[in-house]
């Protein structure tokens, strides 16, 4: 599957705008417009880092893009990750971020939550629903399978299907998986758009709602 032309992704240090190599500035601008149009509420007054994995734009084009982001979308460019920056993470196939935001009450007292351990892989057509608390899966959640928890969803394997954490509206709920490649991901009422054809990034990841009101996916190190 082709990568999207631009991907907006949230990191611990803020938003990153990831641009696929070898495209013209018009294609990129158009894609940015589409990507930002999907944001609800609209993103603004925040800063983004432009991330290019290969030389795509000339300095002049880059200036034009920065100006446009500023003028049209009210987005500041924090920095531009240069293509020869070898430490730059491979994030082209990473989940895009998206938000459907309504203000929700934090309705849950976390310490009273229970947890349930599921000792096997959840396969296509199977559902695991645990509104009382968190789910811990000793196995995979395959495509076509669905896990839903009032609290956290923790998958000690690959999450390939659907996961919904915080079904009771607890927005501090998280989704953690050894391989986080879900088709659908939801925390509370925040939804990621369908994510097809993702590749595992080879380390555990955590999805949570970040300070910017979007689902953030980042490398999981510890709680």
């Amino acid at each position, binding site marked *: 599957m082709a990568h999207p032309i631009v991907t907006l992704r949230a990191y611990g240090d803020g938003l990153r705008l990831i641009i696929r190599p070898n495209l013209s500035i018009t294609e990129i601008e158009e894609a940015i417009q589409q990507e930002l149009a999907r944001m609800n509420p609209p993103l603004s007054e925040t800063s983004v880092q432009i991330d290019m994995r290969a030389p795509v734009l000339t300095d002049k084009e880059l200036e034009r893009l920065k100006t446009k982001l500023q003028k049209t979308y009210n987005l500041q460019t924090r920095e531009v990750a240069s293509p020869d920056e070898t430490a730059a993470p491979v994030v082209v196939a990473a989940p895009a971020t998206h938000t459907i935001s309504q203000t929700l009450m934090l309705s849950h007292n976390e310490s009273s939550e229970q947890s349930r351990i599921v000792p*096997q*892989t959840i*396969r*296509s*057509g*199977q559902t695991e629903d645990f509104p009382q608390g968190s789910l811990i899966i000793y*196995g*995979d959640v*395959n*495509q*076509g399978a669905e896990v839903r928890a009032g609290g956290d969803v923790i998958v000690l394997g*690959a999450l*390939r299907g659907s996961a919904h954490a915080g079904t009771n509206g607890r927005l501090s709920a998280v989704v953690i998986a050894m391989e986080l490649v879900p088709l659908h991901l939801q925390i509370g009422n925040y939804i990621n758009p369908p994510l097809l054809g993702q590749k595992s990034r080879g380390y555990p990841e955590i999805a949570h709602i970040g300070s910017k009101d979007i689902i953030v996916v980042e490398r999981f190190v510890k709680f």
Partner: protein
Amino acid sequence: MGKVIVVTSGKGGVGKTTSTANLGTALALIGKTVAVVDADVGLRNLDVVMGLESRIIYTSMDVIEKQCELQKALVRDRRVEGLMLLAASQKNDKDDIQPEQMKSICQRLTVNYDFVLVDSPAGIERGFQNAAAGAEEAIIVTTPDVSAIRDADRIIGLLQNARVEPINLVLNRFSPDLVKSGNMLDKSDVLDILNIELLGIIPEDEAVIASTNRGIPLVHSTSSSAAQAYMRIARRLSGQQIPIPDLHAKNFFSGIMEWFSRKR
């Protein structure tokens, strides 16, 4: 006492009937007694693939309706010792048979046969449930494409809930060339998702189609690679420890290059 193995897939057309015919024949060729049962009521074709269509007089429906004895409904395959077919009725519908009735037939067959292989129809409805009703073990047939694998995964979940164990995998229509060019999932991708034991890999092979059309199961002549793969699976089913060879893409030189690049 023999054992009942259902051959199933979820998705249609992935090679259940081909696999049942060939594994049944292969097991008989290595000296086992085998009954193959067509559970695809209404759309039977195991008899066609095995070239026994013209000799069918009774079907499992006649046995259920007590029109004839089970032993009399079995058609003997004259090409190999110890191989019998129980055909499915073409006039009836899958809903005309109850899972309990299929289970009873399969259990009675285990008295006289080492292996009872049940060819399941596609889907997860009544036809599949009938086919799986009497099974202790299962063979999942899948092709290396995402929709077949998704359906196989669904079926595995259902079989696990029904305490069928073990559930083994036959990966059919595998093409190393397509894997190499990045257009087919590799064996490891499939096993990662399904997470069950691999029984064998059958390559994409034109000889399969030819044998289907002639009604002579492939394993009667050992020349094709698919036939050899089925023979190895039959040996594994009968308890022998046979390694599963990796299938390689055609170009020898490119294989060497790949080996070097993997070493780095």
